[in-house]
């Protein structure tokens, strides 16, 4: 991989990886660190990584670094309200989106990652399995459970949209 190809990867995938990580970590600075680490690792291993597979490589590395980060910092409690946290992404979002985001926060790390890799990046079950080191059937089952949780949250009386 040449410098030019690497820089092309940066422009093509930096936003997607950042979105994936920040939605999981819900912390801007930590997400930036993880993304930078992932791209640094790609640069170091650029001779071993194909241009065609660099996207999945980036997501794999970013996901693993995110898990390491979570384990290291032991984030157990999920923050429900980030409105006073200046480090988080602030944007006006419709009620449905906010409810969906809240529902997303109810999932565990694996379920959340599965849903985001599926919906944001459009990966197949097999590709998601490779990134997260799960079998295809595991991906299907976990994703199914995640969707059921999201659906039940959305249709619960207090959250009816």
């Amino acid at each position, binding site marked *: 991989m*040449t*410098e*030019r190809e*690497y*820089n092309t990867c*940066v*422009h093509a995938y*930096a*936003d997607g*990886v*950042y*979105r994936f990580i*920040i939605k999981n970590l819900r912390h801007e600075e930590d997400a*930036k660190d993880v*993304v*930078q680490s992932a*791209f640094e690792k790609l*640069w170091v291993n650029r001779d071993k990584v194909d241009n065609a597979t660099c996207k999945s490589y980036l997501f794999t590395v970013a996901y693993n670094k995110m898990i390491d980060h979570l384990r290291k910092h032991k984030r157990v409690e999920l923050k429900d309200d980030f409105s006073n946290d200046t480090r988080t*992404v602030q944007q006006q979002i419709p009620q*449905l*989106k906010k409810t*969906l985001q809240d*529902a*997303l926060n109810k999932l565990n790390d694996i379920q959340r990652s599965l*849903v*985001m890799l*599926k*919906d*944001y990046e*459009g990966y*197949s*079950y097999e590709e998601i399995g490779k990134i997260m080191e799960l079998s295809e059937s595991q991906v*299907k089952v976990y*994703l*199914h459970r995640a*969707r*059921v949780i*999201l*659906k039940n949250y*959305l*249709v619960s009386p207090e959250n009816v*949209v």
Partner: protein
Amino acid sequence: MNINLHNYESYLLQYIDNELSAVEAAAVEAFAKQYPHIQKELDNFLAVKLTDAANIINIDKSTLLKQENTFVTEANFEALCCQYVDGALTPVEKAAVETYATNSNELTAMLTQFMATKLPLEAITFPNKDLLLKKERNSKVIPLFAWQKMAAAAAVVGIIFSVSYNVFYNQKQVPTVEIVSNTATAQLPKANTEIIVPNTAEKNTNVGVVTVAATNKKQWKNAAIVIEKNKAATDIVENSTKENYATNTIINTNNNNNEKAETLANNGINSQNALSKFADIIAEENNFEKNSNLTATASYNIIDTDDEVDNSMYIGAIQLNKNKMKGLLKKAKSLFGVKKNKQPDEDANGLLQVANFEINTSKTLK
């Protein structure tokens, strides 16, 4: 139909089984009325006849019925809704799920709720991507130092080639040419004598001596060609067989075989005339002037009609421009000097060390 006491039983059974026509059934009924014991027998048969068609045990036919759409079932509908949202179904399968969902409002609502769990795309930008980018190096740009290296290497290779060409090739292939006059005493031309035309014995006074020292006719011809200005000499060789032969004979005996030379001379082959003629031609072509002060009649002074400073130098048969060679060597010097970050080594004797070669700048360039 003749019913009597001997054959009425078969008619009774047929009556029970509804095998008789209406007329025959009426006849059996009329006969039974005539005989009370036969009527009682008929009634007993009718009592055990199964007549409750409605008393049938109903089974669940759904397990027997063939489903028009077997892909989607109630059991797998939820899982298929998730796959529907994941985009993991083929268009046919998607249509099957949609069709199945229309079976009831609940199924439709379930599918709709699952579709609402799909995350909408959000545009989130990584701030300051410049932190991630790497500077691109132009692969076509060759660093300056590499150019210097290449130029120095090319200069050294050129010098080596020209020197070895002169040493190994010219000496064997192209002999020197020297015209030796006054060989009455059979002083033979020296073999492979170095070309000393022009010979700078004194400033602005060049004594031109051309020596023929070839060992065969081909070399003689080559020797003539080597001296670029001596075109006339070549003509002599080609047109005058006698002279050529004589000259060649002398040449062939240039290993100091005086006896043979004398014999040839006595045979009337005037080698002196050939050589003298050749010398005259060469002198004329090269602006040589006979130097009466010199004993050798074939020695000529070159009239220096060119610029005061002669910038030519000869390495073997190759005429090189001194200034150009100077420049080339200076460049090589400076490149090696730059690399070592010091002035090039040139000792007091004017010896310049270039790689494994020592170049005497004082002799070469002056």
